[in-house]
C-alpha cells in the first residue's frame, strides 16, 4: 500500500504531461484532469483510513532508508489535511470546467491545475526538509502561472509582488536548509527531531524564528500578510478559491509540523499567541474596511489564520486538535465562500457591494449557499466553524490565557459583522439586473462544498475524535520519529 505515497505526487505530474500531449482536445484534457485529481482524492482517503487504523504509511523513496533517502509519510495529520485538500481540488475542478469552458484550453488550465495538485500533495506528505522546499516551489510555480492566465495590467501588477515576496521567502527557506544541515548534518524531519534537542538552545531558537518567518510569509501571518489581499482577488474565481482554501493552509500545516516536531517546547508559547491575536485582529479590521466581496473574503483568510496559530500557540493536545480541525474546516469554508462570491461575480460582472443587490429574491439558492458558509466563518452554532472555535476558547480558559480568548471572541463578532455586510450588500437592497446566468456546473460544485461543510457538523463526533488522535501524535515527536526511522530496520 505504501506505493500510494509517491503515487499521489507522480500521478498528477504524469497527468499534467499527458494533458500537453493530447493538445487542444477539451474532453480528453478534462478526463485526464478529473481522473488525476480523483486519484489523489481516493488515495488520500485510503491513506487516512490506513493512518487512523494505526498503520500510518511510510515510503522510503528509491529504497534508501531514512535518514539517507527521501521519506514520504502520511500520519493522521498529513492524511487528514490531504483528504480535505483533495476533496476541495476535486470540487473546484468541476466549477472551473463549468466556468472556463473552452477558455481552459487557451490557458492550459488543466495542466497547471494538475501541477498545483502535485505540489500540494508533495508538501503535505514529505518527510524531508529540502523535499519540502521542492514541493512548495512546485505548488508556487503553478500558482504564479495560474495567477497570470489573464495578462491584464491588474494581474501583472499583483503577480509581480506575489512572485517577488515568495521568491524572497524561498531564499530564506534555503538559508534554513543550509543552517539546519550545518548544525545537524541531516534534513530528514524525523531524524532532525532527535538531533535538534542536542544542539545549542540559542541556535535552535534562531532556526525556529527563521522557519517561522519563512512559513509566516507563505501562510500570511501578521506582520507578513500584506501580499495576500492584494494578489488573490485579481485571479479568476476558481483560481482564487483554491488558493484561498489551500495555499496558506499548507503554510500553516508546515508551521504546525515544524513547531511541534523540530522546535517543540513545554507549555503555551507567548510569541505564537501574540502573533495569533495580531493576525486575527488586523485581518478582520482590514475586512471591515473593504467594499468588494473577494477583497473582504481575502482579508478574512488572514484573520482566520490567526485562530489556527492560537491553537498551535497553546501547544497542548486540545489546542492542537482545535487547530487541526480549524485548518480542515477553513479549507472547506473558505473555498466555498469564494465559489459563492464567484457565482455573484459571474452573473453581475462585479463583486463591488454598492453595485449589486437584491439577490435574495432573484437567486434564493445563492443566498442559501452563502448563509451556512458565512455563519460557519463567524463561528455560529450549529455550523461547522463553531466546533473548533469552542474548543479553542475552552482550551484558552483552561490554560488561563484570557487575553487571547477575549481577542478571539471580539474578532468573531467583527467577522460576523463583516459577513453580514456582504449579506446586506449582495442579497438585500434594491434588485440589480444580472448580465449573465451562472452555469449549472458552477452551482453544482458549490452545492457540493456546502454539503461537505454541513456534513462536517453532522459527523462532528468522529471528526473531532480523529483530530484529537492526530494532535496526540503531534505533541510527542518520538511517535513521528519512530514511525519513520523504525521502518526498514
Amino acid at each position, binding site marked *: 500500500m505504501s506505493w500510494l505515497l509517491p503515487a499521489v505526487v507522480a500521478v498528477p505530474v504524469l497527468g499534467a504531461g499527458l494533458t500537453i500531449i493530447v493538445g487542444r482536445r477539451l474532453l480528453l484534457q478534462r478526463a485526464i484532469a478529473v481522473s488525476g485529481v480523483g486519484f489523489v482524492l481516493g488515495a488520500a482517503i485510503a491513506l487516512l483510513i490506513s493512518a487512523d487504523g494505526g498503520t500510518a504509511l511510510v515510503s522510503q523513496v528509491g529504497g*534508501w532508508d531514512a535518514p*539517507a*533517502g527521501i521519506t514520504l509519510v502520511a500520519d493522521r495529520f498529513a492524511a487528514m489535511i490531504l483528504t480535505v485538500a483533495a476533496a476541495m481540488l476535486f470540487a473546484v475542478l468541476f466549477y472551473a470546467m463549468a466556468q472556463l469552458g473552452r477558455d481552459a484550453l487557451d490557458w492550459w488550465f488543466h495542466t497547471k491545475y494538475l501541477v498545483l495538485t502535485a505540489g500540494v500533495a508533495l508538501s503535505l506528505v514529505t518527510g524531508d526538509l*529540502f523535499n519540502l*522546499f*521542492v514541493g512548495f*516551489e512546485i505548488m508556487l*510555480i503553478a500558482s*504564479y*502561472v495560474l495567477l*497570470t492566465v489573464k*495578462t*491584464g*495590467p491588474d494581474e*501583472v*501588477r*499583483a*503577480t*509581480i*509582488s506575489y*512572485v*517577488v515576496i515568495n*521568491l*524572497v521567502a*524561498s*531564499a*530564506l527557506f*534555503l*538559508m534554513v*536548509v*543550509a*543552517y539546519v*544541515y*550545518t*548544525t*545537524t*548534518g*541531516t534534513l530528514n524531519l524525523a531524524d532532525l527531531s532527535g538531533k535538534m534537542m542536542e544542539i545549542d538552545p540559542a541556535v535552535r531558537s534562531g532556526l525556529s524564528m527563521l522557519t517561522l518567518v519563512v512559513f509566516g510569509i507563505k501562510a500570511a501571518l501578521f506582520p507578513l500578510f500584506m501580499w495576500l*489581499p*492584494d494578489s488573490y482577488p485579481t485571479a479568476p474565481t476558481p483560481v482564487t478559491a483554491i488558493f484561498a482554501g489551500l495555499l496558506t493552509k499548507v503554510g500553516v500545516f508546515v508551521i504546525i509540523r515544524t513547531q511541534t516536531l523540530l522546535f517543540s517546547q513545554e507549555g503555551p508559547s507567548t510569541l505564537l499567541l501574540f502573533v495569533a491575536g495580531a493576525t486575527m485582529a488586523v485581518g478582520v479590521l482590514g475586512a471591515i474596511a473593504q467594499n468588494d466581496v473577494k477583497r473582504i473574503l481575502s482579508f478574512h483568510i488572514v484573520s482566520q489564520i490567526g485562530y489556527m496559530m492560537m491553537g498551535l500557540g497553546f501547544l497542548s493536545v486540545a489546542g492542537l486538535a482545535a487547530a487541526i480541525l480549524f485548518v480542515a474546516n477553513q479549507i472547506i469554508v473558505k473555498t466555498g465562500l469564494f465559489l459563492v462570491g464567484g457565482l455573484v461575480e459571474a452573473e453581475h460582472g462585479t463583486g463591488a457591494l454598492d453595485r449589486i443587490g437584491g439577490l435574495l429574491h432573484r437567486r434564493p439558492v445563492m443566498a442559501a449557499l452563502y448563509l451556512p458558509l458565512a455563519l460557519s466563518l463567524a463561528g455560529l452554532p450549529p455550523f461547522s466553524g463553531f466546533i473548533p472555535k469552542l474548543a479553542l476558547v475552552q482550551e484558552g480558559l483552561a490554560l488561563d490565557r484570557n487575553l487571547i480568548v477575549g481577542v478571539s471572541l471580539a474578532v468573531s463578532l467583527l467577522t460576523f459583522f463583516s459577513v453580514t455586510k456582504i449579506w446586506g450588500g449582495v442579497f438585500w437592497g434594491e434588485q440589480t439586473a444580472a448580465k449573465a446566468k451562472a452555469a449549472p456546473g458552477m452551482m453544482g460544485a458549490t452545492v457540493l462544498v456546502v454539503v461537505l461543510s454541513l456534513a462536517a457538523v453532522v459527523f462532528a463526533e468522529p471528526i473531532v475524535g480523529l483530530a484529537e488522535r492526530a494532535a496526540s501524535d503531534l505533541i510527542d515527536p518520538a511517535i513521528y520519529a519512530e514511525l519513520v526511522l523504525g521502518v526498514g530496520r
Partner: protein
Amino acid sequence: MSLVMLSVAAILFAVGTYLILQRTLSRVIIGLGLISHGANLLIMLAGSGPANPPVILATETPPIADPLPQAMVLTAIVITFGITAFLLALALRSYLLTGTDAVEDDIEDRRIARHGQSESEREAAT
C-alpha cells in the same frame, strides 16, 4: 566554514536586499538573483560541516566532499532559474502595458494615499 566565503554570502544578501527595495523592476529581479546566489553559497558552505554523506564505499581516506549540498544547490539553481525567467517575462509584459519599468503601488496603498491628500492636492494630481 571559511570566513571569506561567509562574508561573500553576507555581501550578496546585503546588495540583493538593497536592490529589492528599489522602485525599478529590473533592479528588483537582479536583487532576487543575488539573494538566491547568497542562499546557494550558504548551502555549499554547509557541506563542510559535520555531515555524514550517504556515500556507498565511503572510506576515511582520501576525504571526500559531501555531495548532498551540491545536489541540493543544483536543484535550487534550476528552480530559481525558472522563476527568474518567468519574472522577466512578467516584467516585459508590465513594461509593454504601462510603458515604465517601475513597480506599481497596490490598490490599497493608492487609496490610503488619496485619503491623506487635501482636495487641491488631489486635483493637482489628476
